[in-house]
């Protein structure tokens, strides 16, 4: 069953060629690794990643965004 899923996924990828998938990562859950085998550090990795997402944006990013409109 795992092999069938994999083959199906590859066929889809080929069909779509290089185009980036609609709705991206927001559609989670499909084709993920088996959750039951998650090791203890997996939540640590998620925390490490999420802690950066939750950081307030440094001013340098706001400055860059405000400069973008002048670029073209």
């Amino acid at each position, binding site marked *: 069953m795992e092999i069938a899923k994999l083959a199906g996924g590859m066929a889809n990828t080929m069909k779509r060629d290089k185009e980036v998938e609609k709705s991206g990562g927001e559609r*989670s859950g499909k084709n993920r690794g088996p959750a039951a085998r998650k090791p203890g*550090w997996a939540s*640590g990795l998620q925390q*490490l990643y999420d802690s*950066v*997402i939750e950081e307030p944006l440094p001013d340098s990013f706001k400055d860059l965004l405000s400069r973008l409109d002048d670029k073209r």
Partner: protein
Amino acid sequence: MSHPERTVSEKADFKKELTEVIPHLRAFARGLCGRPDMADDLVQETMLKAWAAQDRFEPGTSMRAWTFVILRNAYLTDMRRNRFRGEYDEGVAERILTAPAGQEEPLHLSDMHRALLTLPAERREALLLVGAGGFSYEEAAEICGCAIGTIKSRVGRARAALTSMLEEGDIPRRSLDDDLAHGAILKELDAVVAGNGVAAKF
């Protein structure tokens, strides 16, 4: 393949979406290159490239996936120019992650971080995309420009390496400062870059 010039309102939409994706770009970049200051430089470089290439973005598709491709390519280019040496950020050393249930010793963020940085770049990015970024194997394969089976194998190897390091206490101290290790990483990077069809676009 020609894209019409974006209207003012489309540019505004693009900018809004680009703004929303910045925290995700920062998290991915931090995981890839370790040092927060270098990671933020990489994100800014990515934003400028994305802005310049905005005519090539298909409205309605994933801005996160699209910008991750740009960031990844910028990172690989910088790595090959020897800008990043997988440097370890001492600033995180004191922070501790909450202990996963059933584990006696809390997992130290510094250990997690160091273990992550010892992984070859291609495995590290695969694990970041699937294990933290919430991308499916299929989406990660598209971002990296490789087959799904390749991503699965990279994630599997990365997981096995982290389990060995973090659960069996086998963390190399400063292996990335070692020139031999760095040479090996650059060699692998050449392979990653060579196999990446999407890279040519940026």
